[in-house]
């Protein structure tokens, strides 16, 4: 798998088209996509699993899904990064909770409205999200991270934190809305 061409030499849609063609060039397109996005997939999986080996397994699984079924991805500009990030998070949570894969990867339309295809734009977005998270009240951030990065239900979070169920739900939603507001 040789990663031909410099980073971002082709946009995601063109790389996905080469994947779908399934020709001899498909493996090169896959290499380019891997070089562009493996850090995102691995980072998310590692955050959830806190285990380098398990995160590598999720990384492998996510990219093999993309390789086998590139047709399920709607290659609109900027969508591949968030799609891969969410697939990786969901798969890692499935591993944590020792359950089979929960959703079909076709059923995850994600349109953030933020262009995440360009590396520098992605870095800016990443810094912005981290900044928002850092500015959240501790209990809001904790509830959001327990739900998202640990896959805990609100009942489990309420039991662990000793807070009422409704409070946990409100905190999670408020934290997410704060993230959204920062990108408006």
């Amino acid at each position, binding site marked *: *798998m040789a990663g031909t061409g410099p980073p971002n030499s082709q946009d995601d849609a063109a790389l996905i088209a080469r994947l779908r063609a399934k020709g001899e060039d*498909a*493996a090169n397109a*896959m290499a380019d996509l*891997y070089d562009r996005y*493996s*850090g*995102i997939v*691995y*980072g*998310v999986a*590692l*955050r*959830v699993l*806190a*285990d*380098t*080996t398990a*995160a*590598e*397994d999720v*990384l*492998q699984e996510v*990219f*093999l899904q993309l*390789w*086998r079924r590139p047709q399920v991805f709607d290659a609109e500009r900027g969508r591949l*990064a*968030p799609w891969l*990030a*969410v697939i990786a*998070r969901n798969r890692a*949570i499935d591993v944590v909770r020792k359950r089979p894969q929960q959703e079909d990867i076709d059923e*995850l339309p*994600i349109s*953030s409205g*933020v262009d*995440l295809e360009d590396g520098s734009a*992605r870095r800016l*977005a*990443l810094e912005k*999200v*981290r900044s928002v*998270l850092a500015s959240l009240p501790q209990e809001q951030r904790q509830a959001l*991270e*327990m*739900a*998202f*990065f*640990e*896959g*805990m239900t*609100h009942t489990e979070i309420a039991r662990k934190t000793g807070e009422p169920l409704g409070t946990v*739900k409100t905190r*999670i*939603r408020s934290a*997410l809305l704060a*993230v*959204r507001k920062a*990108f408006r």
Partner: protein
Amino acid sequence: MKDHAQFAEDLALYAMGTLEDQERPELEAHLGTCGECRRELEALRADLALLALSATGPQPPQRSRDRLKEAISEEQREMTESADASAVYRLHPRRLTLVPAAIAAVLAITSLGLLLEIQRLKDANVRLAVNLREEQRQSAHAKEVLAMLTDPNAQHMTLVAAKPASPAHIKTIYQKDKGHILLLASNLAPIPDDKVYQLWILPATGGPPVPCGTFPINSKGNGMMLDTTEAPGVEAKGFAVTVEPVGGSKTPTLPIMYAPAG
């Protein structure tokens, strides 16, 4: 019956896949009739994608790239063989040009059905082969860990926090000849998102610390790492853990956070 605002709060949990099973049917029924909630669900999924991206930072090791490359090459090879087999079958109907047209049509349809079935079986075979390889790889991995745990020559060490009265505890197992290191950490102190913990070998020769892998911790301060050093054979007098920028460092950033007990 919940009101619209209560459904809005459930939507965030639903988007994360963490809504309790007993609450899902009611929300899904509401989603079927409420366009506003469907749009909000899409917006929440986009918010979550941004949240997921916040974990970007650590880079996977080269072996992950090699592993994917190998899996893809194998699938390509299997598919090529599958296509060749199908081509052989496609030749058969051509031999039937002299038989009555109706029989030829029936046979053609039957052949097509068989071809599709053969293709389906081939695809299933490819998937099974890939799964088998994955199982074998995981089994080999488990054996590697077990070998480390039972190797009488492996060096076991316990690291504790430099600050007293910390519950933090790190266990390292090091196979010098192979350069394999297994690390199990518990109750480590939280660190900022743009930082990671990194393990170092302190050489017995007194040379500079040898960088090993970085490892994340979860919200409980627990983490695990199985790493192979770039220079096997280094005799270790101890290990140390520091906090480094995401991606790791070539030289340790002081202070040392965790060091051998005693």
